[in-house]
């Protein structure tokens, strides 16, 4: 049945979808200035405001405020309409929840899936194999001249340590990833190369690579030579023998979304705590839109108040600024107090049928779930693939969450995610397709007003049904 759950972003096609670094005009200038040097930007903005107050000229104020408001609204328009690159309108992903859903600054609820049919064991053991094969490369300092990341190879634990202690392996992977102080999502060139190699080792198994599209720019879903394919950075180099030693690609490409040259850009995220790649999914809220709307009305208030207090000179403009700030916080308080908080949580609902069940469900790490929504590439965050926005969430099974992973002689003998109730490794390409078809039919299909059941079926259903689903559009 068609659903109409609230979503706020609309993905854009190639040529329209762009990152903040590609924003032009005043919006692009301000956003990029702010992200490059926050302190300088805030300082410069304050100086500018003080200048406006001192000038005390409505002729200057009006164009400035209107331009700033337009820039803010343009940013909002970009954030919700041009930030995400559409790949497929609706798609499904089956996997294990590897971290509890968390609320983001923009009001979205984020969750990360370890995609079926792979398990943590698959990834960790393959990672160890790949490290062993590439040991010489990983201790070669010449490979690690990669500022602001490494300038020399991070110390590689000896085989006996890394193959018997998950913590040591995890620590090494964090050091290999390294950090860019200006970009929390960025990872070093060699870290990307290692992860691409690990993924390739896993994806060569044709019985397990049915979610290739979420790990890699899959030509079956993103045909080569199309504008869509061209809009996605190169993430794989087929000329490299990724199963052999020195598995590194020499590809250097210009990434327009970051306005800089880089090597291969993996399309999957990697969790450094569980040592697994994952698919990021987001249930959307609208907090950022609310915040920008409130900033815009605060700017209007400032302009109006400045004009009212024009006679007071610079003091009037300063007073207007105080009033605008007060109004901004008042509106924020007003929104919070009335439940207009920008999160995707629904309000309390009154049902016309008192027998209607209602209430959320706790999500747990280890749940096997299917997310259904838009398959997109985020032009931000290093162009990772995502399901965003999530439009439906199917809990398939609840497995236990192990306490600590146990690594013995390169075998991950105890995983962090159990599979006693449902083993995602049992999912096959055919079953994944069947599940997605069922879900798409359920989400987008139309329910008949009347159905005819035979007595055996009606009796099997227990001669009763309970309400299901929510937020459905009845056609």
């Amino acid at each position: 049945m068609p659903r109409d759950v609230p979503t706020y972003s609309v993905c854009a096609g190639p040529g329209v979808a762009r990152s903040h670094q590609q924003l032009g005009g005043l919006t692009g200038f301000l956003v990029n200035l702010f992200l490059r040097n926050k302190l300088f930007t805030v300082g410069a903005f304050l100086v500018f405001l003080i200048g406006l107050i001192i000038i005390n000229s409505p002729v200057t104020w009006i164009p400035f405020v209107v331009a700033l408001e337009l820039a803010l609204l343009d940013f909002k328009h970009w954030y919700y309409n041009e930030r995400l690159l559409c790949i497929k309108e609706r798609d499904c992903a089956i996997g294990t929840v590897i971290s509890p859903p968390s609320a983001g600054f923009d009001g979205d609820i984020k969750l990360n899936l370890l995609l079926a049919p792979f398990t943590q064991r698959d990834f960790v053991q393959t990672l160890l194999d790949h490290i062993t094969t590439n040991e010489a490369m990983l201790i070669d300092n010449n490979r690690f001249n990669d500022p602001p990341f490494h300038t020399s190879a991070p110390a590689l634990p000896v085989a006996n340590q890394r193959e018997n202690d998950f913590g040591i392996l995890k620590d090494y992977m964090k050091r290999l990833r390294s950090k860019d102080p200006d970009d929390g999502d960025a990872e070093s060139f060699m870290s990307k190369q290692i992860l691409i190699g690990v993924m390739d080792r896993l994806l060569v198994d044709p019985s397990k690579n049915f979610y290739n599209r979420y790990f890699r720019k899959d030509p079956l879903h993103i045909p080569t030579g199309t504008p869509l394919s061209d809009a996605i950075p190169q993430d794989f180099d087929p000329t490299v023998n990724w199963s052999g030693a020195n598995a590194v690609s020499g590809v250097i490409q210009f990434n327009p979304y970051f306005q800089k040259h880089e090597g291969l850009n993996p399309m999957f995220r990697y969790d450094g705590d569980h040592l697994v790649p994952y698919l990021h999914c987001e249930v959307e809220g609208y907090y950022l839109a609310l915040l920008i709307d409130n900033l815009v009305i605060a700017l209007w208030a400032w302009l109006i108040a400045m004009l009212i207090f024009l006679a007071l000179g610079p003091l009037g403009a300063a007073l207007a600024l105080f009033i605008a700030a007060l109004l901004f916080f008042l509106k924020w308080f007003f929104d919070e107090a009335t439940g207009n908080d920008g999160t995707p949580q629904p309000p309390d609902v009154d049902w016309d049928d008192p027998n209607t069940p209602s209430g959320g469900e706790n999500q747990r790490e280890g749940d096997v779930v299917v997310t259904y929504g838009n398959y997109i590439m985020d032009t931000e965050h290093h162009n990772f693939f995502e399901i965003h926005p999530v439009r439906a969430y199917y809990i398939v099974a609840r497995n236990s969450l192990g306490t600590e992973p146990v690594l013995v002689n390169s075998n991950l003998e105890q995983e962090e995610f159990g599979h006693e109730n449902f083993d995602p490794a049992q999912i096959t390409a055919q079953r994944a397709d069947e599940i997605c078809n069922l879900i798409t039919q359920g989400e987008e299909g139309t329910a008949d007003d009347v159905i005819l059941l035979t007595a055996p079926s009606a009796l099997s259903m227990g001669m009763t049904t309970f309400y299901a689903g929510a937020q459905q559009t009845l056609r």
Partner: protein
Amino acid sequence: MSAWITKVLPVLLQELIISLLRLVLFLIVWLIRIFVRLWEIIKSLLHTGNLFPEETEEDCGEIPDPFIRRPDPCIYSQTYLMAQGLPVTWDNPDIWVAPAANPGAIEPDSFHLKDDTDYIVSVQVHNASTDPAIGVKVRLVYRPWSFNSPDLTPVETDASGNEVFRFVDIGGMGAAITQFAWHTPKLQPGESAHFCLQAHVSHPMDTNLGNNMGQENTNVFSQNPGFVSPGEIADIEVPLFNLARRAQTVAFRWDAYQINTADQVELRLKVAHGTPNMPLGDRLGHILPRVEYPKPPPPPPPPPPPIEITAAASQPPPRISAFGRLVFDSSKSAFRATKTKYEGFESLQQVILGRDYSLPAGMTVTVLEPVPLMGFQEERKMTFRIQVPPDAPPDTRIPVNLVAQDEAGALIGGVSVFFHVRP
């Protein structure tokens, strides 16, 4: 740049103007809200002894309810149906057995199976929800022919001896069949090879846990020792176990109920509508105007599996306005939820209850111990002496359901026996 001017700028200017309107309205609404909220607090204090309402836990970070789907996997469940006052049979329409050597030859019952033989057991699982049921776990166990033997053994095990489960995915209001491979145990001469099969279905989001267990416990009396003759008296032995933690009396009753497969029921979609429960004071916080950008229509649904579409009709893309829609609400105050289910089982229920399931005239059932007092965890074989009607027409199949109930009338167990009169 020109595309930005023609496509984006109009909506930005619209937003700019609306934001000015929002500012003006905010100041007015804010003042009104203060008075409304004060009135609501005063009104609330007049009706309660608490200064503040009970605090509820923040659900930040949870997946919201409208996104979560809730299936109802189910199977023909004798206990669930009997609890609704319906007659039941242990000839379960959702469980059937066939020899692995000849999967098309469905066994007529679970009583006359051969020992040390490979069988395929099919289990049909239904979904009584409009949401798809993904990953329904199916468990199949067997136990000796009895009313309620506690000895449950997995039908299928893997090479390590671990029980094998099956998982099925079912569309809304649909059904799916899964199969188990069963090698019946090898028996010593003189041991009974009569079985009862029990299927369990489970799902973590199941909306109804009552209809998840069904039994197949039948004995067709035409197979072995063969057909019955009119007037023949058959002694049926059924073991009975008292699993209660105290002695209790057991009562028996019997009927000739069987599912009429020709019956049908028309179900109608029922929709529950939900609207936000917001006091006026809060609702005021959501009425400030905003611009809602036009959204692309959702993709068309895929065709159901059996239908193949050879050519899709091409339609011109909908014209998208340069301006957004002006709305005076928020996503929260405009939230409209609907939940659906099918209802209308009452007509079938009336049909079923309106029929007479008494044994045919001349057919009698005698229990040697009509109301046995079963000791603590005692096991006893109950013998039912059943006389086939002297005037039973040839080649007819007479069902007899034998039901054991405890003192409170709760179901202990049951078996279905079919008497096939000699042609």
